[in-house]
């Protein structure tokens, strides 16, 4: 493992390369362009076997679905409108049970046109059957890349790992990128039981009549929900091999032990919340943070347990459900359906389209939630 000071995207591209993908297919789009460019550079240098330069994102994902169905380890990277354009095949990939992996540089959706960070693009694919992991920083994304392949190939479901655009993709920091040899010990070769093979012909992605269709979807649901165990297992195993862990792999608590007021969120803004928690703790406030790492499958049980003793909780999300209750907020509330008691749970939508959620903002949120009253605001 070598330490280097580089841009997050290039380090993530290197981590992906070290997982030895057979096929990469990308159409670069801000904010994940540099991941695609990094992978293209590795291809040009002969370190990646195949890189398909597609004419748009629908083709990128179609290409890697095909490659994966034929037994290849296949990967892409995209953002925002690119992921939206992939939408149709995003669902097909989960339904076909092809274990492809995508790095998502999170970015707002049009309109108005905006190239900056929020989670609308990946949250819009929430219901597709993909596993979604949200990373707090580029080091976590680097470490999540090999985990993503391993999880995908174990449960035969696609995985996207999500990285805040610009905040993480374009930040130059010092990272440790695990080498190919080290990853080989952690991530076995992809060897699917069923694949497109001329010696044993089958067709994948066939149609299903009303009598069977629902059964297939239910099967994906069951396996996706059960994959909580695998996400955790793979994370723990990675931690043992490489010495870096992120909470329990599903959620990460920060100063939760005696916390009465807890902010729940995901991704890079959690670094700012940690600073805010420390600042307010110095003033004697019992505040804490619960970071969701595995958004799908959602760790309902772990969330309910972590928040059980809190008086009030607020959910900060860079996503929304216009005209409804917001996605992460709904999931946190959903965690308490089987509980007799639950804390006051409030909702904050913030940071849309790159609107900076500063440490000061986070302190403000914690102070507001410490009043103990329910609120639903756009910060």
């Amino acid at each position, binding site marked *: 493992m070598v330490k280097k*000071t580089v*841009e997050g995207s290039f380090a993530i591209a290197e981590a992906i390369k070290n997982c030895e993908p057979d096929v990469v297919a990308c159409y670069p789009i801000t904010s994940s362009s540099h991941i695609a460019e990094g992978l293209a550079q590795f291809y040009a240098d002969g370190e990646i076997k195949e890189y398909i330069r597609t004419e748009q994102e629908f083709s990128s994902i179609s290409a890697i679905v095909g490659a994966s169905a034929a037994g290849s380890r296949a990967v892409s990277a995209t953002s925002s409108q690119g992921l939206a354009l992939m939408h149709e095949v995003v669902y097909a990939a989960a339904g076909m049970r092809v274990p492809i992996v995508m790095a998502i540089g999170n970015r707002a959706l049009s309109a108005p046109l905006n*190239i*900056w960070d929020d989670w609308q693009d990946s949250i819009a694919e929430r219901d597709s059957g993909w596993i979604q992991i949200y990373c707090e*920083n580029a080091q976590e994304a680097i470490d999540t890349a090999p985990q993503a392949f391993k999880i995908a190939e174990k449960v035969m479901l696609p995985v996207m790992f999500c990285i*805040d655009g*610009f*905040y*993480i993709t*374009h*930040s*130059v*920091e*010092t990272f440790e990128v695990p080498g190919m040899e080290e990853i080989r010990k952690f991530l076995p070769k992809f060897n699917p039981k069923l694949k497109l093979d001329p010696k044993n012909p089958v067709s994948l992605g066939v149609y299903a009549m009303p009598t069977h269709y629902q059964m297939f979807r239910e099967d994906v649901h069951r396996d996706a929900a059960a994959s909580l165990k695998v996400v955790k297992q793979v994370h723990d195993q990675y931690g043992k091999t490489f010495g870096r862990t992120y909470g329990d792999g599903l959620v990460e608590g920060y100063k939760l032990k005696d916390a009465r007021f807890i902010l729940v969120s995901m991704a*890079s*803004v959690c*670094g*700012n919340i*940690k*600073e805010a928690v420390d600042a307010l703790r110095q003033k004697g406030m019992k505040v804490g943070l619960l970071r969701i790492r595995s958004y799908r499958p959602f760790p309902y049980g772990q969330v309910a347990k972590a928040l059980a003793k809190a008086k009030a909780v607020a959910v900060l999300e860079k996503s929304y459900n216009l005209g409804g209750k917001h996605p992460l907020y709904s999931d946190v509330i959903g965690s308490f359906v089987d509980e007799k008691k639950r804390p006051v749970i409030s909702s904050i939508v913030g940071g849309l389209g790159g609107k*900076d*959620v*500063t*440490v000061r903002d986070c302190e403000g949120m914690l102070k507001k939630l410490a009043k103990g009253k329910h609120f639903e605001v756009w910060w």
Partner: protein
Amino acid sequence: MIEVRFHGRGGQGAVTAAELLAVGAAESGNYVQSFPFFGVERRGAPVQAFCRISDKEIRIHQNVYTPDYIVVLDSTLLQAVDVSAGLKKGGVAVVNTNKQVKIKGAEATYCVDATGIARKHLGKPIVNTAMLGAFAAVTGLVKIDALEKAIRHRFEGELGEKNVAAIRECYEVLKK
């Protein structure tokens, strides 16, 4: 934690300057973070880039609002942008200009004709590397050798050497 804000115009290399500073500062074991504020990405438009240097892990991900240092790559920005916005008490400014200017709110303003120096060594008014030399001389936050190493790594061959000459001269000028 030290926060540095670079002000430049699109194409002048403010983003690269922030990155090279981070790479140079990491060399001596610091935690670093540099990133651009992407606005309208057009040549000539005012741009900002940030760099954080710390002896502890850097957890925050937000723009720099209260810098300890500001580096101005283009003196015409002084009329167009409030470069000293949020500058901390005791904050220091390093400005590329052939005049003597004083930045309002800065404890000290260091002026250097980086354009002249860059023209001399590179034949072009691209001042980002030269200004890093000035920054290193004024602040001592980063070793000039580490910056030179970072520059040689980034720009191969002759171009690297030209940039190193520019950064050297800027460093020497302000060291005096």
